[in-house]
């Protein structure tokens, strides 16, 4: 019963999908196919990321994270999170557990918010894909505008939101 309750939204959406199938066979089948392929992609990605986060969590000491991206890390810290986001892979929701793990270990909130911003624009595999599909000029404009803007946003949100108000769940 507890299990069913946890998955109540999924169950509702599945019922809606079945409804869609009876309303329009084609659409329902298509929705099913897209869902299955998305879930496959997610199942290929998420467990790997969580194992990585788990390993980092137990092996990397708090002091290291504080030194690399804590309150005192300054510009060096921003460069480190930018590099981290650049070599990353996967959709944004993959970045959330990494971000909260780093926050828990003492990373500064502005650095982590910038990390999320960079994740959405400078990831190398994605940027290469973007260049191939939309051109170098487009991609360079995208990065050149996003990076300074997200840096500014990181400072603004840090000013508004106190770090200790964050949930920072990742294993509860």
């Amino acid at each position, binding site marked *: 019963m507890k299990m069913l309750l946890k998955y109540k939204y999924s169950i509702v959406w599945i019922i809606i999908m079945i409804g869609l199938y009876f309303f329009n066979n084609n659409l329902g089948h298509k929705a099913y196919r897209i869902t299955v392929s*998305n879930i496959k992609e997610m199942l290929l990605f998420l467990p790997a990321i969580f194992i990585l986060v788990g390993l980092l969590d137990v092996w990397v000491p708090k002091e290291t994270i504080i030194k690399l991206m804590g309150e005192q890390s300054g510009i060096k810290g921003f460069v480190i999170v930018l590099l981290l986001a650049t070599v990353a892979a996967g959709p944004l929701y993959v970045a*959330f557990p990494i971000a909260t793990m780093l926050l828990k270990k003492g990373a500064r909130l502005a650095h982590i918010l910038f990390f999320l911003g960079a994740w959405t624009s400078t990831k190398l595999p994605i940027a290469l894909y973007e260049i191939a599909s939309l051109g170098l*000029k487009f991609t360079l404009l995208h990065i050149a505008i996003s990076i300074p803007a997200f840096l500014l946003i990181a400072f603004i949100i840090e000013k508004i939101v106190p770090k200790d108000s964050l*949930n920072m*769940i990742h294993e509860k």
Partner: protein
Amino acid sequence: MNNPILYLIILILLTVSFIKDRAKTKKALLKAWKSFTNILPEVLSIMIFVGILLAILSPETISQLIGTQSGLLGVITALLVGSITLIPSFITFPLAATLLKAGAGYAQVAAFVSTLMSVGLITLPVEIKYFNKRTAILRNGFSFIVAILFTIVVWQVMN
């Protein structure tokens, strides 16, 4: 980074970790499993919702909405559609290239791609669970503004 390389790295790290400290490795895996099962209900419902949404909002429909001569209305539609949906990047870029070929301007494509990557209304519940309501809403709101800014620049420079 593709999946085989990712898993190879994980496997090597796990092996090294296991050799060095079995208890710590077990703890890491337990944490990983807890995090995974903790977020799975949300992620799963998002996946099913996106499946239904994308079935209705097919690439053909999207290119009709933000295709040829769609102008400012096309830009606004692209910003909104991009903010709501969640499309894997291996679909996003071919789709964006197709949109360009189908006659959409760079501005519409910029609006679509930038909001797709940085604004996620569908993933908002997950983001709130990890951070909190205020942070999640602020991050998405500001990212939306950045997407508009990027779209305006592309419109001026590339169209």
